[in-house]
């Protein structure tokens, strides 16, 4: 049991807090939805709607048709040496209406959430290259697994280099 004086004190404190919160929320309400609308772009090409039930790990997706593309540490740049593999994917897509899912991955180092973003950025960098080569954006999805599911299990540069990659899944 707390004394009534203490309760009064707490109630008074709460009153002050409630008043200031109200003042804040009134102020914010005015600004809240005047931000940027969700259809705004920075020159990128938005992803098409996902095809329901289709996923990179699904049984109806062939993940070995194309070789993975590799990246430098903390880099999303498509290296010149990797473009041969991508040109192969681009020319396949031009003559096919199959769905392509690009999955980005990172090595185990760094912050998990940043790595998920970095993996997605790698997948998107590969997608941009394919779009430049004439592939249709309607048939391409991206996903990122960050540092999950490494291609090599070691903890050295040789393993890390294999794990910084984008893989391709094509519908069967």
């Amino acid at each position, binding site marked *: 049991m707390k004394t009534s004086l*203490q309760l009064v004190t707490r109630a008074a404190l709460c009153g002050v807090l409630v008043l200031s919160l109200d003042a804040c929320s009134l102020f914010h309400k005015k600004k809240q939805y005047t*931000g940027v609308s969700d259809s705004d772009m*920075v020159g990128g090409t*938005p992803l098409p709607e996902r095809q329901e039930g289709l*996923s990179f790990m699904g049984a109806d997706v062939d993940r070995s048709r194309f070789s993975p593309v590799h990246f430098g540490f903390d880099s999303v740049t498509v290296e010149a040496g990797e473009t041969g593999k991508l040109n192969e994917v681009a020319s396949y897509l031009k003559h096919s209406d199959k769905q392509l899912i690009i999955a980005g991955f990172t090595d185990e180092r760094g912050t998990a*959430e940043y790595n998920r973003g970095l993996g997605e*950025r790698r997948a998107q960098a590969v997608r941009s290259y394919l779009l430049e080569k004439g592939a249709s954006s309607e048939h391409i999805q*991206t996903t990122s697994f960050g540092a999950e599911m490494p291609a090599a299990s070691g903890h050295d540069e040789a393993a890390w280099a294999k794990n910084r990659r984008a893989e391709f899944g094509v519908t069967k």
Partner: protein
Amino acid sequence: MLRKFSFLAAGCLAAFLLTPLLSHAASTPTITISANGTITIAIGSIGGPDGAAIAKIVQSDLALSGFFSFANANGASMVVSGGSSGGSLQGKVTGHSGDNILLHSYEGDARAKAHAFANDIIETLTGVKGMAGSKIAFIATRTGHKELYTADYDGSNVRQMTQDANISVAPSLSPDGRHIAYTSYLKGYADIYTIDLASGARNRIVKFPGTNSGAAYSPDGSRIACTVSRDGNPELYVVDASGGSARRLTHTPGVESSPTWSPDGGEIIYSSDDGGSPQLYRISASGGSGRRIPTGHNYCTKPNWSPDGKKVAFNIREGGSFQVAILDLDGGGVRVVTGGDEARDPVWGPDSRHLLFTQGGSLMLLDMQTSRKASILSGLGSVSEPTWTR
């Protein structure tokens, strides 16, 4: 004149804060603050079948808070005691002259009653928000898969929330501890789900094309900030707590990740590698442009804003090793607070004094005032991405 006013205001505030303490006492209790700044307290007996267990948890909570040191009843300025019967705990703190400083009853299981009592002791005697009643959630690999778990802040009362044998990551507890938002790959893509902890109901709330991850509840629990890549690049978004009304905040070719809210919900600090390597930025929660926060480090990820609004904990990469640093928002100073094994994913406790982070696969609790560090979890495999109620 101004100075006189602020002095008066401070005096009033001090009197205000002390009132609840003094109001209990027939005579003013003498609180002995020892040289190291702790309050000396004795843990007396708590009667009843679960009394001994409760006393042990209360003592552990008071010790972890960092505010207390312990003595026998003769050497302490206050004694904790009580009685437990019929599922109810009568908790009491008495001063030297036998006066009641705190007297309150608590319901629930032994652990819940003990944490609630300990939290009242901390808040009554220090005037600071305690962490003893708080909850945490995290990811662990005990089953061989990354699954979502909850626990009390001290690592006890562990519950496995998901049994998906899939990939569950990036959890965020709502400030009131009733919901968890997190990322799951159940549909093959990273989507944001929420779980209502009372009912167990799960909803997929952010499922745009691409990757949806990094949910962070706003301080009032009404909104969620996250990373969404549907526009062709990972950008920061704010959605309402059920996933609707998506609004985009950032417009860069870089990767935006790990948003964290200011205590008033008006601003967001996040990490972006738009300038090359990941750095901390600050943006209004209603949009605009992000302003870079200088830290002196060239890899800064996973910021976490303290509930008192004064500090930001984040990850740095230094000499190839990942460590935890603290940015003082007033002065702009940055200090590295971990060393040795890689430390990741820092999160502040409700007291803005303790930090949780992972190190060597286990969960560490660090008292920023005393630098005391304790491992609070083991046996769950590799633990990652802790989140904490506020």
